[in-house]
């Protein structure tokens, strides 16, 4: 007995001290790092969530402020240098004042820049008041006109003269958070039902699977419309927001439930699960301590891939007019306002700006989710 111990000690000495052994999460991180696109997408996603969190700080114009004089004003250019009358050049970020002219022939408004009118812009300027993160009252904004009484439309104005850039920034909060809330709801329902299905099998499994198949076979848009129609119109915005989230999460949970079920089924017969039961663990403990950590990384990857679906779902619902309603600002409601030919021809920025934002968010979330999914199983090739 002793001779075996000393010899294997010596062998393990050489083993431990020279070879670096990584724990399971470290392996996942290392594999993720290799996926460059996913890493950069992750950075962008974090930026987008920061925008959502610090929205008012970043938005130069109050989103509900209407201005009749500036309806459908195109985006303003930013200039860096001012030419003085004495011919000198001075560095001053600014935009040019805009005059509205009426074209009596085509009966259209056009906006013309007025070179003489300078609107100086700067960083950390004073503007409208708000509460940072809902707590700290502030009135400083990252970027905007140095004179609080002036306004600048960096991405143009909509039909009520409201600043599109600011609205997109604040719409980020709603659209991205619906994604998260929706995914959380999906997670709970999906893991619960999928887990029950996979762990117990038998008739429970059969019942839940048939239920899932039924839900999936119902055409989604009519289903959503029906549910949205059931929302009373006089409900406060927060409640409708929550209900829209629940509706949206109904698409996510079925695929998650199936994945969880599959994982449970394959894990159920693993030796270490049997060993855990033989160690005296109850079913609940086995699930919590052994099975859930085994597929945690897969779940995280699935959830990350579900978020863009949620965002697109909310966007579609609001675009169709059955999701969030004005005056709530989300990317979907912004797109709704671009929902006519006149807007697209005369004010394409109403469509392009929010649309680009959606594309960027969805793409980066998808790349991030791909990277996470590949990294989730570090031992797979």
């Amino acid at each position: 007995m002793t001779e075996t111990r000393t010899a294997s000690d010596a062998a393990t000495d050489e083993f431990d001290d020279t070879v670096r052994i990584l724990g399971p999460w470290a392996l996942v991180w290392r594999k993720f790092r290799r996926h460059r696109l996913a890493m950069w997408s992750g950075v962008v996603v974090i930026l987008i969530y920061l925008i959502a969190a610090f929205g008012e700080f970043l938005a130069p114009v109050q989103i509900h402020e209407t201005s009749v004089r500036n309806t459908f004003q195109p985006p303003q250019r930013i200039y860096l240098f001012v030419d003085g009358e004495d011919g000198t050049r001075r560095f001053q970020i600014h935009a040019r004042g805009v005059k509205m002219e009426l074209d009596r022939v085509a009966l259209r408004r056009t906006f013309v820049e007025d070179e003489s009118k300078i609107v100086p812009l700067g960083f950390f300027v004073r503007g409208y008041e708000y509460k940072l993160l809902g707590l700290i009252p502030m009135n400083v904004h990252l970027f905007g006109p140095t004179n609080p009484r002036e306004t600048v439309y960096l991405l143009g104005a909509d039909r009520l003269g409201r600043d599109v850039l600011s609205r997109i920034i604040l719409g980020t909060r709603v659209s991205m958070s619906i994604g998260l809330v929706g995914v959380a709801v999906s997670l709970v329902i999906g893991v619960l039902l999928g887990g029950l299905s996979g762990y117990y099998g038998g008739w429970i499994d059969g019942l839940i699977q048939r239920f899932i198949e039924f839900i999936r076979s119902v055409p989604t848009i009519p289903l959503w419309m029906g549910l949205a129609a059931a929302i009373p119109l006089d409900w406060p915005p927060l409640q409708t927001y929550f209900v829209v989230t629940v509706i949206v999460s109904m698409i996510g949970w079925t695929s998650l439930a199936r994945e969880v079920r599959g994982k449970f089924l394959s894990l159920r017969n693993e030796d270490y699960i049997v060993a855990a039961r033989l160690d005296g663990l109850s079913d609940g403990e086995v699930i919590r301590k052994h099975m859930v950590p085994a597929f945690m990384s897969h779940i995280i990857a699935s959830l990350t891939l579900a978020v863009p679906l949620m965002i697109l779902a909310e966007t579609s619902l609001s675009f169709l007019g059955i999701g969030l309603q004005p005056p709530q600002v989300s990317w979907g409601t912004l797109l709704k306002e671009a929902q006519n030919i006149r807007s697209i021809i005369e004010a394409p920025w109403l469509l392009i700006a929010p649309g680009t934002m959606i594309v960027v968010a969805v793409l980066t979330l998808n790349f991030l989710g791909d990277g996470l999914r590949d990294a989730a199983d570090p031992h797979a090739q």
Partner: protein
Amino acid sequence: MTQPTPTPSSAPGTAPAGETPLVEIAGLKTHFFTEDGVVKAVDGVDLTIRPNRTLCILGESGCGKSIMARSILRIVDAPGRIVDGSIVYRAEDGRSVDLAKARPTSREVRQIRGKDIAMIFQEPMSSLGPIQKIGHQIVETILLHRRMSKAEAKRTAIEMLDRVGIPNPAQRFEAYPFELSGGMRQRAMIAMALSCQPRLLIADEPTTALDVTTQAQILDLIADLKDEFDMSVMLITHDLGVVAEVAEEVAVMYMGRVVEEGDVYSVFENPQHPYTRALLKSVPRIGVTTAARLPAIEGMVPHPLARPSGCPFRTRCESVIEGVCSKAQPALVPVGPTKVACFLHSDATTDD
């Protein structure tokens, strides 16, 4: 079915006069360049595969025997690469090809792979495509390497299935791999490998996943086919019993190197290398082992990233020489009827 009659080779370790080796491996090194470091899976292997002989490569997991076989056919996956050495194959028409230097996807190598040198693996399910009928897979191989019509190829395939002992070969031609039992699948894989009548069959643990009774049948089959097709067999295994049953020559590997090589009788009855000795002693034998405890080899195989300096076996060797075994790797040199790489028998090192 006949058993091959054992004939001790005339001048062991050297080929009988006039017999050119089929494959000659010299100084082969296949390394894996992983994120954690370089794994020297094969670290300087010299081997000679002669025509019409059964050579067994004996070793435990991690000794590099499978990687060495894959290096011959240039099917080593990234991040593995042959970094040194030569694998010279002598074709029937007298040409020599250094498989180590050729590009793995070149026409030369592809012509040899599957036709002159064929390989069968431990897990038949991983080399038989699961969604194609086995007969069709064999036909595909035949058409790739031989000039025949499709109908002829089908006839040949059914003949091969029959030859390997699959009952109802014409019916089984249309079977999918999952419809066959383990032993049958292995036979189907052998049929596929032999369909082009290779000169060398490399069998990588062909019977490890099979029952003992099926194993005996498959080993007999391989021996019969070897005689019938006039081919060489390189059989890789960790099972000493299998080696004793079928081998004419044995090469024992440890941590990427051949530590002992020779005819099977000399190696089993008079092992020279401490590893071979210890291995033979540690295996229980029915009716022979009487001791209550098996004389086990101490310690474990070192981690591939933590190779000991000098002779890799020195951490477990009961005859280790202080100050000598850690300084340099011993070279594989003839010692009596066999070749041994050990400082107990020779001072030769690999740097010489």
